């Protein structure tokens, strides 16, 4: 069984694309080979900054021959039918066989597909793979038309077995496959030839290239932690950075560098961000003080001076970056001390938020008023919430955030603290943008929650008012994220807020001249509130991830108070639990039967049977038992609903299952006696009323 080695050698592949590309290469090639009738024992793919490599072992030497027979038209059938059959089978009429079939003489096509050599199949599959590779972004170069992530320079495509190794003949856009590769760009620039994967990997290592990304990461991690440890320090773990750096080097050399004393007073996040974002440095911390004191850089080069020149250069670049940062930090602190946060943020009045929604200053005023209003609902002090909202975005005007936008919020916390404001206000500055994604933590401090909610609700209300709603995949203002943020803030904090009321007052703060889209009507009329519907849509997605079905959520959305998401979800959970029980599931059938019979009768008779059933017309024992059961359920459900104790209410409702089933088994609703029939329909009406008071069970499927 031969083994296959493929290497696609190119100019530097972006680090973030390497792992995915290796995976795609493996999948595309192996799928292609299998589809063409080959099998293999194992496949593994690798990436370095300059190469994608695929090793397949135990490949079959050729695909099996395939013989296929197709039955065609009868002899004497119209020419058109015969021609069509020939076209479909891809043969000429000489190749047709005539055989006796049940219905007489019939044409048969016998299609022989001989087995193909693995090399032929590989050449085809690799060509198609390279030409259609799913790079996130690809490019052309020189005069060629081939697209690759960066110029593709050489290809290895080698089949090897005990007898030896042979290149698979293949040329893609002028690049002919061979068996030679190159090592590290500077340390081992010469080409070398290989006779199989093991040979390839070993020769690469001699040529200063570690093929496996996880091995490079391990080298980096081990060397870095050891060097930090030897200096009595610890490396700050950062897996994302480790993965990225592993994709920037073929031959990692870890160097521990110094940060000038003058910069150690900067906030640790500033040091970390500056080092990580711009320089791809790891931070090294003093475990005793928690301060970041050194850095680790990973070079792709071993030098005669053991990296001294490289380290000196990196330290210099870092010093230039950090002196900028220090300059900004000191200027910002000076501004805050002299003019307060209001002074720092004064310029926001001149920054356009959106040309139809005024300036950032306008927006902050709206958020502050909203935060004050929301505060009592989330247990926050209204004064603090308003104050926090007023200063929460001041840092957008700081020099530090101007340079490092990713530090927005965090710098606000530092500056608010420096200004001597309440720590709850400082926390709100940092946390009010959260949650940013589905896995981002949700703030829990009341003032932070109030400001975070106000920020997002103002955004949503504003863009709704100017009719800039998300459509399809387009959501340029990240409104879906904002809505999910509101949902998570409300639910995870158990906040009781009527979004409809909040929205109405948020809407009122948006100046009339901005409004162009749907505005909130005064009454709760039809087509009332597509923003609330938008919240409900996001809520469905959110709850579905928690295992709650769409129809259950719909049944709860149809109930009053559906803009109180905490209440809505509590109801949905209770309903889901109830429906998961045997009683609950069967109750739905009973309810639907009752509802169908009743609805048909009401339509036919043109009346509404809601006058109350009378026990004295009950004839059957099952019927009498149902009266008793409904009374008992009512007695439990009504107070439970008042207390929002949905579990108790729904358990009581589910308990009706037995009596309802028994009733339908024993009794014919449409009795010949009109008095009896009417009474029974009125009884069904009680079932419907009780069930619908808990949730809109008509929405439940099945």
């Amino acid at each position, binding site marked *: 069984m031969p083994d296959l080695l493929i290497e696609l050698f190119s100019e530097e592949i972006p680090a973030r694309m390497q792992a995915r590309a290796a995976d795609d290469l493996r999948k595309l090639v192996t799928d292609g080979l299998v589809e063409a009738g080959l099998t293999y024992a194992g496949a593994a793919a690798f990436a370095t900054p300059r190469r994608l490599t695929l090793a397949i072992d135990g490949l079959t030497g050729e695909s099996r021959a395939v013989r296929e027979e197709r039955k065609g038209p009868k002899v004497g059938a119209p020419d058109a039918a015969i021609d069509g059959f020939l076209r479909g089978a891809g043969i000429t009429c000489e190749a047709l066989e005539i055989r006796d079939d049940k219905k007489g003489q019939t044409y048969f096509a016998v299609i022989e597909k001989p087995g193909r050599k693995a090399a032929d199949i590989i050449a085809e599959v690799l060509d198609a793979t390279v030409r259609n590779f799913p790079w996130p972004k690809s490019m052309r170069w020189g005069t060629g038309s081939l697209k690759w992530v960066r110029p593709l320079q050489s290809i290895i495509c080698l089949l090897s077995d005990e007898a030896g190794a042979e290149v698979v003949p293949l040329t893609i856009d002028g690049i002919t496959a061979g068996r030679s590769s190159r090592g590290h760009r500077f340390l081992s620039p010469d080409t070398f030839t290989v006779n199989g994967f093991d040979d390839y990997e070993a020769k690469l290592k001699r040529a200063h290239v570690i093929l496996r990304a996880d091995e490079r990461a391990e080298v980096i991690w081990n060397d870095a932690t050891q060097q930090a440890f030897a200096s009595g320090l610890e490396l700050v773990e950062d897996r994302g950075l480790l993965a990225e750096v592993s994709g920037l080097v073929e031959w990692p050399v870890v160097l521990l560098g110094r940060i000038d004393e003058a910069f150690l007073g900067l906030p640790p996040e500033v040091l970390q961000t500056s080092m990580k974002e711009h320089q791809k440095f790891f931070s090294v911390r003093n475990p005793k003080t928690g301060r970041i004191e050194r850095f680790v850089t990973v070079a792709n080069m071993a030098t005669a001076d053991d990296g001294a*020149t490289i380290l000196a*250069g990196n330290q210099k*670049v870092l010093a230039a970056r950090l002196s*900028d940062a220090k300059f900004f930090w000191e200027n910002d602190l000076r501004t805050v001390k002299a003019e307060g946060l209001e002074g720092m943020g004064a310029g926001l009045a001149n920054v356009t938020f*959106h040309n139809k929604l005024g300036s950032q200053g306008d927006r902050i005023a709206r958020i502050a008023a909203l935060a004050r209003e929301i505060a009592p609902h989330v247990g926050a002090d209204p004064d603090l919430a308003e104050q926090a909202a007023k200063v929460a975005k001041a840092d957008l005007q700081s020099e530090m955030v101007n340079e490092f936008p990713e530090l927005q919020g965090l710098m606000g916390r530092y500056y608010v603290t420096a200004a001597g404001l309440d720590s709850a206000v400082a926390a709100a500055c940092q946390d009010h943008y959260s949650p940013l994604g589905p896995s981002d933590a949700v703030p829990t401090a009341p003032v932070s929650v109030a400001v975070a909610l106000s920020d997002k609700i103002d955004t949503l209300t504003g863009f709704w008012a100017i009719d800039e709603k998300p459509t399809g995949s387009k959501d340029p203002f990240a409104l879906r994220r904002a809505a999910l943020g509101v949902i998570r803030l409300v639910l995870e904090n158990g906040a009781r807020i009527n979004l409809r009321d909040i929205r109405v007052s948020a809407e009122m703060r948006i100046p009339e001249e901005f409004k162009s889209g749907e505005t909130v009507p005064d009454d709760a009329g039809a087509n009332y509130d597509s923003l609330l519907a938008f919240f409900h849509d996001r809520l469905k997605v959110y709850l579905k991830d928690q295992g709650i079905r769409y129809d259950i959520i719909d049944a709860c959305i149809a109930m009053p108070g559906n803009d109180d998401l905490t209440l809505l979800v509590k109801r949905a959970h209770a309903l889901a639990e109830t429906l998961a029980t045997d009683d609950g599931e069967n109750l739905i059938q009973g309810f639907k039967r009752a509802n169908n019979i009743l609805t048909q009768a009401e339509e036919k008779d043109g009346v509404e049977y809601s006058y109350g059933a009378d026990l004295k017309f009950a004839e059957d024992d099952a019927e009498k038992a149902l009266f008793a059961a409904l009374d008992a359920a009512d007695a439990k459900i009504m107070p439970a609903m008042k207390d929002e104790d949905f579990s108790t209410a729904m358990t009581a409702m589910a308990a009706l299952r037995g009596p309802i089933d028994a009733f339908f088994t024993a009794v014919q609703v449409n009795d010949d006696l009109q008095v009896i029939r009417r009474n029974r329909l009125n009884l069904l009406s009680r079932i419907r009323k009780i069930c619908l008071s808990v949730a809109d069970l008509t929405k439940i499927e099945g």
Partner: protein
Amino acid sequence: MSDKPRSFQEIILRLQSYWAAKGCAILQPYDMEVGAGTFHPATTLRALGSKPWAAAYVQPSRRPTDGRYGVNPNRLQHYYQYQVLIKPSPPDLQDLYLGSLAAIGIDAHLHDIRFVEDDWESPTLGAWGLGWEVWCDGMEVSQFTYFQQVGGHDCRPVSGELTYGLERLAMYVLGVDHVMDMPFNDPDAPIPLTYGDIFRQTEQEYARWNFDVADTDMLLQHFKDAEAECHRILSTAAHDPKKDMQIIMAHPAYDQCIKASHLFNLLDARGVISVTERQAYIGRVRALAKACADAFVQTEAAGATA
């Protein structure tokens, strides 16, 4: 020449000699205010069309918003870029580039030189390409781009573009911490001049004018004038009645596009362009660049045949 260059100008001269030896036409800077070497018609326009091209030049570049009155060690509103454009991009362009670093005294065996992903896009030129920023010991010393589109036109063949930020690169090679302290000519010359001797005062003057004094009404009017003239030039019939021949005026039109782009930068520095207006202005300049590109591809210099 000693192994290590001793001055800013020596670095420039070595780059000029190196790329001349590699066959590039050594052009002179374009005689208009531009934000980057890419704006030189030798890059923007010559990256279009089928005719082979190889040029290198220094381009003084102006970015009004980067002015720091000559105080910041690294930031300037007027600085120099070294630009190389070769069409079609040769297969050994990376090696050629590394050779140029060696020529200015950067020994690849002592330093850590890396090609780090950086996709280049110029919204004002309607242009984009893929490539890298080149790092030397953690510092970005060049941009390396394979042009894919310019002025909305696919580049066929593809040009390879190299851009060196000369001050930053030279400061690193010369071991200088503040740009103003960098020797401009040879430090042992009878009259040694530093970068600061030449540019400190001008940085102050321009920073003041850019940020506070430039007449914004006038600049706005000039922007509109340049835009109108560009469109007027391009809408003029290609046939010149005086000479009775086809003369498409792509370059004069493109001059107006360059002007509009720089005027926009000045207005931006004066802080009179809001965030939303920014996009609209960029779009207007891009429309000019595209119109110029449309015109250029119909000319002989782009390989068009009459």
